[in-house]
């Protein structure tokens, strides 16, 4: 990895990478809010550069992280940083990133737990727990019966093994977020089948980032 801090640099970069995955590519704009130790000591650790690098698709060992703010500007990615105090319980190294890419939008909260490990704790207001250690499928679906069965049978048909899965919703009958962590990246065929399920919208395949 590129220094100087596994939590404030490598972990921050991974949160940026995950956020990028949620909008399916390079965002046009990103609002990055830094909480706790990220806010207090982030600049010196290159946390801003690392998150910007992740949003540009750079991995933690990419030396371009050093120049990522300049590269973001060149690439036309508008990125703003501010300090915040997030409500509720959060790890000291936490950031909230709000992204826009064409019609795609996402708001993600992620924490850097130390030694480069991360935990994504919230996506678009839904509480989640994703580590980025596996390729994952993320989508929002109407909260109706049978979605999980349809998705798991699609994955089974194309031979993808599920490492973990999580479904959470804000209220009954509204929308639920589904996150499937897989042992291998999902095939195009599996993605097509899942996308064709009527209740599913905004399907994203996010590569392994840890």
């Amino acid at each position: 990895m590129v220094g100087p801090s596994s939590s404030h640099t490598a972990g921050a970069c991974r949160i940026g990478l995950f956020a990028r995955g949620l909008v399916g590519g390079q965002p046009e704009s990103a609002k990055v809010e830094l909480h706790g130790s990220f806010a207090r000591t982030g600049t010196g650790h290159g946390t801003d550069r690392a998150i910007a690098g992740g949003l540009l698709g750079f991995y933690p060992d990419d030396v371009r992280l050093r120049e990522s703010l300049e590269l973001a500007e060149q690439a036309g990615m508008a990125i703003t940083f501010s300090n915040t105090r997030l409500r509720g319980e959060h790890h000291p190294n936490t950031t909230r990133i709000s992204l826009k890419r064409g019609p795609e939008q996402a708001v993600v909260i992620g924490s850097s737990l130390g030694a480069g490990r991360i935990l994504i704790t919230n996506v678009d207001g839904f509480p989640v727990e994703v580590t980025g250690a596996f390729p994952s499928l993320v989508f929002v679906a109407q909260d109706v019966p049978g979605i999980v069965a349809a998705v798991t049978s699609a994955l089974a048909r194309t031979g993808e093994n599920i490492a973990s899965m999580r479904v959470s919703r804000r209220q009954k009958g509204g929308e639920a977020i589904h996150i499937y962590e897989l042992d291998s990246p999902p095939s195009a065929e599996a993605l097509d089948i899942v996308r064709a399920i009527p209740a599913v919208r905004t399907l994203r395949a996010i590569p392994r980032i840890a």
Partner: protein
Amino acid sequence: MFESLGEAVERAEADRISLGELALRTEAEDGLRSRAEIEGALRRALEVMRGAVERGLPGDLRSVSGLVGGDAARLAHARGPLAGTVFTDVLASALAVQEVNAAMGVIVAAPTAGGAGVLPGVLLGLARHRPVTDDMLVRALATAGLVGAVVAVRASLSGAEGGCQAETGAAAGMAAAAGVELLGGSPTEAAHAVALTMQGTLGLICDPLGGLVEVPCVYRNATGGAMALAGIEMALAGVQFPIPVDEVIDTMGEIGRTMDVRYRETAGGGLAATPTGRRLAKERLVQLKPRRP
């Protein structure tokens, strides 16, 4: 993976294998990666570690803030009582890696970037004085990984959670076990080396000037390497620490959980809060003021 170093040592002793071999077998049995893939990854890590030491030793790098750099090169002219020994080579290598890290160079987090100098410092410092092969170094890295994984589960590897004892302290424990393995010691001796090393880093706070991984981090990696050498030397001489290693690790975790937030990577206490610490941080951070496009 193991949640108890004591259990791992028991298993390794029963199977008459080293901790590194045990770590490689266990990780391969987990099935996520083959043994060849795991060894390949460790070999790449070893190469990055070597590269970082080589990049840092000439002393031409300055950190992002300009506060540190060039000290690894000074050890080439060591004139103290241990000049020219493995000791000064460990200090120089640890400083070299941390100076590269502070300059946003490429290093291996071991277990973190802030503690990244200790393990390569100890292993590559030892390798200059002993006939060791890359295969031996790879197994030693696996040993270090096993220790780090246990510390992660039982305590913490984050300065923001547990202070520097969780970063350079954990790194020193990892390096002590790895060093014992590299020098042909037993799994039991490796565990005692971890305990003997980490009892010496208990309570160590994380107090970086301005929050930068520079002062005292760079120097603390060197002293962390020295602590690991002390643990290795005592353990190989047959010294046995009376408190079991898992309990030493648990103690580190407990101290971390009750450590004041000023001492957990917030730059609110310790050396960071000294008059000079505050002044240097202010000067350097103004200079660092990031452009906000």
